[in-house]
């Protein structure tokens, strides 16, 4: 069943056409890859889909409903989560805190009155929920460390955990492996696959690492200069000469 459907999304920035009539679809529990050279408009597309930017034309449908001009946080409440290319972590807060904030936001728990009464105590069920996700991502040991002191890879996992704990139906991952070496990438890929297997969540993934894309994504959409130049099963698309030309610069 189609979970997300973007039709004809167009976005212009003062003369530059960043996105030109882009279509993207994602079914439930699917993992779709979004690839393309730098500057192709991938993050812009993400921003349009998540509500950070308003497209100049086109529609974005989630679970069949037009998202229209819905704000970022409202889309999040519908079950859309995301990670960021330039990580948007919360400086000074621990890993647990990140997940806790996300969890409470998701359950609409907490607020001024309860703050004054509950004195900031963390309920055991909250602790369990957070720990479960931490364990899944291998972050239990780092749970109480502030994110500022963590490595890049761990930071990305924290973002992922933060997104997953909100029990989303759809997650946008923006270059989750960028900056990671081979070993780390493989670890995260494995983690991601396990997490996906356990949940009813669809993933749209922007990534440059072809191997990771091949391992994770069933389908792939290729952007170049704001246009979709190919779309389909991963292996097929990666063989497409047009894609190879644009992306890999290979002319064979």
């Amino acid at each position: 069943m189609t979970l997300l459907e973007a039709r004809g999304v167009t976005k212009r920035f003062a003369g530059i056409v960043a996105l030109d009539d882009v279509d993207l679809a994602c079914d439930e529990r699917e993992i779709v890859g979004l690839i393309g050279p730098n500057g192709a408009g991938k993050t812009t597309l993400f921003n349009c889909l998540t509500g950070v930017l308003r497209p100049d034309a086109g529609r974005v449908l989630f679970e069949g409903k037009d998202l229209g001009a819905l704000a970022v946080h409202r889309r999040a409440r519908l079950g859309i989560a995301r990670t960021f290319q330039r990580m948007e972590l919360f400086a000074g807060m621990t890993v647990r805190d990140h997940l806790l904030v996300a969890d409470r936001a998701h359950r609409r728990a907490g607020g001024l009155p309860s703050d004054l009464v509950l004195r900031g105590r963390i309920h055991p069920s909250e602790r369990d929920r957070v720990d479960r996700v931490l364990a899944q991502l291998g972050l239990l040991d780092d749970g109480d460390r502030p994110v500022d002191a963590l490595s890049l890879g761990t930071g990305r996992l924290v973002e992922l955990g933060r997104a997953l704990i909100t029990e989303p139906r759809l997650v946008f991952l923006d270059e989750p492996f960028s900056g990671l070496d081979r070993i780390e990438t493989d670890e995260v890929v494995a983690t991601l696959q396990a997490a996906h297997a356990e949940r009813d969540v669809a993933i749209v993934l922007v990534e440059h690492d072809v191997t990771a894309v091949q391992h994770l994504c069933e389908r792939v959409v290729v952007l170049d200069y704001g246009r979709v130049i190919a779309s389909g099963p991963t292996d097929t698309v990666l063989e497409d000469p047009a894609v190879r030309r644009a992306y890999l610069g290979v002319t064979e």
Partner: protein
Amino acid sequence: MPDVVEYAIRGVPMGCVFALVAIGIVLTYKTSGVLNLAFGAQAYVSAALYYTLRDPDRFGWPMVPAVVVSVLIAAPALGWFLDRALYRHLRTAPPVAKLVVSLGLLVAIPQIVNLDFLLGSQAKLAPPGVASEDPIYVAGINTSANEIVTVVVAVLSVLGLGLLFRRTNLGLQMRAVVESPRMTQLAGVNADRVGSFAWMLSSLFAGLAGVLVAPLFAQLTDLDFFGLLIAALAAAVFARLVSIPMAFAGGIALGVGQALAAGVLPADNVLSTGFRSVLPFAVLFGLLLFWPGLRDHAGGGDPLAGVDPPPPSPGGFVRPRWMTVLNRSLAGAGLVVFVVATLAVFDEFWLRVITQGIILSLIFLSVTVVVGLAGQISLCQAAFAAVGAFATAQLVDKTGMSVLVAMVVGAAVAAALGALIALPALRLSGIYLALATLAFAVMFENVLVPLEAVSGPTRQLKVPRPLLAGIDFANNRAFLLLCTALLALVAGIVLLIRNGTTGRALTAMRSSELGVASLGLSTGRLKVIAFAVSAAIAGFGGGLMATFERQMGRQVYQANFTFFVGLVWVVLVITLGARTVPGAVTGGLSFVLFRQILEKVLGVSATLAGSVSFILFGLGALTYAKHPEGIVEAQTQRFVRLVSRRRAHPPDDAPTAVDPVAPAEARP
């Protein structure tokens, strides 16, 4: 000629004055990324120096050498010094940090200049211009050589600066350095040298503006320049802080608008005079609410921001148990000593002074909430406090309700106002939000405070001391203990909020609004909550001040809640530690006691004690960039590290590429 045209023409010279200042602000922002609120203070330095050099009783120099020294030498020298000592190290800091530094300078620089061994503080009457002020008649309208020079300079600077930025390499480099110093360096440009030059240029402009504008005033004071600056901000915001021609146009429009309003609107009508009083600030506020495209250009856009090693990461500091125990016992012991001293030792004078300090500490907790927790720079906390005070006084006077209840209701009134102020906050952030709160504070002072419906009669409203559980708090000792208890209560509430969901969400929002939104939390709602709570605390403190003084009206407002004092509050709390309760409490007590101790205990003259206090408060803000967690917290951490040096593990060596200026999440 028709009246309207005559009025419009009469507004042009003043418009050029606004334009000059607005151009200066835009120039500084374009070339250094700093919204230089201390521009007026820098202008004052040159104006005061020029005055002193021309003063026949001091140096008696002729015009040309005096201009050369005060504008062409002293002003750029000051700019170079400010760059070397401060702003160079802040190039990659977020715009808010730079704003805080400029606030500190705004407070400190005039006090330094007015010290006896520098230019001195005697009245500077009749500041001379650079050209004659004798009237010259152009088309039947009087002007003067000095005015003409001002107009010519304004026009030339628009042309000259336009040329600089559009045609020369240097102009391009200056703008590039603001966007990304690292990238510019990679392109072979000495970013430091370009940055220094940029500061020298914009400071030169400040000096020029100062000297040209000074003769407008019958007496030269630094606060007049600051007032001029705030008015000119409307034109600068109109230019979106980047377009010099638009700043010029905005300034002229403002001057002409004021003259037209004076000429066309009915004179002697309360509404029209009120409107004319706040015209520039209302325009500023309106622009901030509705003018599209107001974005912090100089912040966060640097692709190479992650290259610089992040500032000493406060992360990793977790208070060891022994520290918490030590803290608690010290606090307990301190409290006992304090209570004993209150009941037995302090005389009425010190009782009064300390009570004031405690009440201010309570008010400062409002800064902790809005600045420390939510990361929003609010410069109108004094206005919120005043609202609470006025409301308390009016309620007690008109309805006879009990004081403590009136204080709570007053806090609620302030909270409602705070929520309203948050509305511009929804679409603004960082420096623009700060400006919106500043504009509000100025409008409040000029429009609302003079109204008897708000501030009561000239003889001031009487406010009784509370009567609670049989204790009459007219007794000053009892009242001090009550204030201390209330301080502890509010501090407790702030801590509960901080450790609760709201606090965590606010802390998160402080780092990344986008991250928080992506979790389904509305940043708008969070900001409104932060402002409302903060205003409530300030309002409650204001009400407490009203019952302390046992009266409330315009005189009490003048002594305690002017907008300028509100600026000093924010500077002080941020310096000492905006996120922690000790920061706020230290701030409140220092504000009142520092000067008194200097004067009464150490025997320093009152004038000097006041100057030194302000200088230190201002200069303290300069530590903000290095210690965004505040001085109190920084010293505490240093102490802890010193003591547990042998026990600490080295922190993880590969920091993640997050926003460098990270506040500490510390518990009290």
